[in-house]
C-alpha cells in the first residue's frame, strides 16, 4: 500500500506553494531523487525546511536555480552563490534557525508539542520579538513547532511497511522530519519485504511514513574529501 513505483508517482499530488521538509546535513542523507523529482515537476513557490540548501549545481541548489523556492528555513546556507544572489535581490525569503532549535522544532511538530523553551538564541537577533521566560534564574526563548505538507526523507533500508534504517551520519534530520510531515515520502536504497528488518534496529517506525520508493544510482556527492596523510 505504501510502496510507489516511481518518484514521479510518489510526488504527483504536490502543488505550488507547498511546504516541504527535506532531510540531510550538507549533502549527506539528502533525498536526492525526490529533489530531482521536484525539479522535473516544476512546482513553484515552495517553502523548504532543511538544515542547508545544497550547493549551486546539486541537491536543493538546483531548485534555487529553477526558481522553485520562495522561502527557505535553515540553520546554515553557506555553500551557495545563487542563494546569496537571490536573497540579496529580495527574491528569496529566509528564516535562520539555530541548528538544535531547528531539529527540536521539527521533532516537536511530529510529537504533538506546539512550542518549547530553549536557551539557544537568547540575547541574539534570532530571539527578537519572541517570548522570553526565566526558569530557575536562566532565560529561555519560546520556539514553535514546525510541520510540513510533505516530508522527504532518505533511508538506507526500508521495508514495505515504511520502517526505515539510516546509514551512519545520513540519519541527521530524517527521523524527525518523517514524523513531522503530513505526507512523508521515503526514498530508500534497498526496499525489503515485511519482516526482513530486525525490529530491534529500526530508526523510523513505519507509522510515520506514507510512501516508500526504491531508488538506485544515488550520487552521494562528497563536499570535502579529506584523507589522512
Amino acid at each position, binding site marked *: 500500500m505504501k510502496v510507489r513505483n516511481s518518484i514521479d508517482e510518489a510526488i504527483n499530488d504536490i502543488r505550488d506553494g507547498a511546504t516541504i521538509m527535506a532531510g540531510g546535513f550538507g549533502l*549527506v542523507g539528502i533525498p536526492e531523487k525526490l529533489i530531482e523529482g521536484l525539479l522535473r515537476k516544476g512546482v513553484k513557490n515552495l517553502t523548504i525546511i532543511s538544515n542547508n540548501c545544497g550547493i549551486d549545481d546539486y541537491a536543493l541548489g538546483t531548485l534555487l536555480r529553477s526558481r522553485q523556492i520562495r522561502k527557505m528555513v535553515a540553520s546554515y546556507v553557506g555553500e551557495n552563490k545563487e542563494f546569496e544572489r537571490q536573497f540579496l535581490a529580495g527574491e528569496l525569503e529566509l528564516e535562520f534557525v539555530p541548528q538544535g532549535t531547528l*531539529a527540536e522544532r521539527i521533532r516537536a511538530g511530529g510529537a504533538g508539542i506546539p512550542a518549547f523553551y530553549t536557551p539557544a538564541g537568547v540575547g541574539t537577533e534570532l530571539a527578537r520579538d519572541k517570548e522570553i521566560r526565566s526558569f530557575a534564574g536562566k532565560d529561555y526563548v519560546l520556539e514553535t513547532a514546525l510541520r510540513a505538507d510533505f516530508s522527504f526523507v532518505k533511508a538506507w533500508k526500508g521495508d514495505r511497511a515504511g520502517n526505515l534504517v539510516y546509514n551512519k551520519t545520513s540519519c541527521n*534530520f530524517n527521523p524527525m522530519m518523517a514524523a513531522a510531515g503530513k505526507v512523508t515520502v521515503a526514498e530508500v536504497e534497498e526496499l525489503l519485504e515485511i519482516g526482513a528488518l530486525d525490529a530491534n534496529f529500526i530508526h523510523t517506525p513505519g507509522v510515520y511514513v506514507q510512501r516508500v520508493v526504491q531508488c538506485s544510482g544515488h550520487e552521494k556527492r562528497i563536499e570535502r574529501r579529506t584523507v589522512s596523510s
Partner: protein
Amino acid sequence: MSLTREQIAQRAAQEIESGFYVNLGIGIPTLVANYIPADKHVVLQSENGLLGIGPYPREAEIDPELINAGKETITMIPGSSLFSSAESFAMIRGGHINLSILGGMEVSARGDLANWVVPGKMVKGPGGAMDLVNGAKRVVVIMDHCSKDGAPKIVKNCTLPLTGKQVVHRIITDLAVIDVTARGLELKEIAPGSTLADLRQATGAELIVDPGLKRIEV
C-alpha cells in the same frame, strides 16, 4: 612573540581532560584534535549525529555518508554511536557535553560571543553555534587576539551580532589565556615574549591580572 595557529590549537588541547566528551568547532578548533595526547580517553562529538570522531580516512576507507560538522570525510573510533540531529542537540543542550571549543570574532568582558555574522559578507547562518554555547558545560573560544587590521577582538561590548550572551568561560588567543569571571576578564597566561603593556594595548577591555600569571606553555 605570538602563538601560531597550531600552537593556539595545542594550548587549547590542554583544556581537555580524560573522560571528556568534546565538541570542536569548524576551522582551527578542528585542529585541536591533533594535539590530544594518546593517553587521554576523549570522545569527540559531531553535531550532525556522531559520538566518536576518528582520524581522517585513508583513500580506500572514505565513506560519503560519514562526515563531521565541517562536511569533511572522517572515520569512527571503536565504541562510537550514531544518532539523529534532535538527539545530538539534546545532549548538547542538556549539558552532557563537557567542553565546546569554537572560534570567535568578538568576545566581550562579560563573556558575550559574536561569531556568526562576518561584517560585509552575506550572513550564512548560525549552524549549531547558538545551541553549543548555551548548552555545553564549558565554552572555550580560540581566536587571534586582534583582527587583521589590528583592532582588538576582546572588547567591552560586542559590536557584531551576538551568538550567545554571557556564555564564554575562557578565551585562548595568540597572545594570552583569559578567563571570564564575575569580576571581569582575568589574565591567566601570557605568550612568550609578550609584555603586559602589549597585551593591554591589544585588548579592548579591562584586564585583571591573576597573581599566579604564567607564560603559555605549548
